[in-house]
């Protein structure tokens, strides 16, 4: 998608460090990424720990569990996500990648700790990176989010 900003200036950048693996946080993250992609941002996602674990090849088309700390409300939310056929966070992320400039990088440290190989990860992941490369790529980002 062409940038929707001023075509003479470079695309604004957005950085997202994604470390959480619960449905409501991942949906928040993928929705945020969609908005940025729609406005022509160059979005860089660095997936670590549970955020990376949520990108395993298996289970790609179901919602991950909701954060359980809200008792019955957590169960109701899980039920609603299923009953209302809310798109999964990965579906939303896939759409954002198709429409805009969104890259997903896997944290190399988390890969080691979680015992993951590249083949274990969803094709949404572009590359395995160290944190220094993430910091370098997102230099000058207008916004950096941690989810």
């Amino acid at each position: 998608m062409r940038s929707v900003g001023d075509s003479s200036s470079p695309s604004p950048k957005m950085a997202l460090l994604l470390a959480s693996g619960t449905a409501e946080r991942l949906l928040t993250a993928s929705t945020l990424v969609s908005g940025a992609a729609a406005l022509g941002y160059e979005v860089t996602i660095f997936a670590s720990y549970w955020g990376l674990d949520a990108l395993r090849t298996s289970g790609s088309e179901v919602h991950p569990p909701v954060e359980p700390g809200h008792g019955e409300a957590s169960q109701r939310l899980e039920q609603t996500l299923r009953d209302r056929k809310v798109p999964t966070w990965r579906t939303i992320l896939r759409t954002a990648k198709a429409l805009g400039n969104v890259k997903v990088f896997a944290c190399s440290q988390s890969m080691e700790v979680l015992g993951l190989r590249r083949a274990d990860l969803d094709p949404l992941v572009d590359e395995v990176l160290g944190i220094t490369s993430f910091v370098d790529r997102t230099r000058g980002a207008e916004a950096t989010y941690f989810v």
Partner: protein
Amino acid sequence: MTDPVASPSAGGAPQPPHRLVDARGAWCPGPLMELIGAIQQEDAGAEIEVLSSDQGSRQDIPLWVRKAGHDLVKVEEGSEFDRYLVRKTH
């Protein structure tokens, strides 16, 4: 989901191609993403009509259309859903 629909065939000037994007029931960011996808597939001059029941669309769709440089021809707010008519300009 998006369906191409036939242009109205009433007399007068030729009508631009018209495409309906029925995003009712889709939550943010679904309706805007469906609009962007439809815009990408159509030629300049085409009109895309989006139906959305997402309240966020009331701000997000006009914002995106303005920033992307297309025309927001018409907005009709309804009690159940809203109707946005967008013309692709480039």
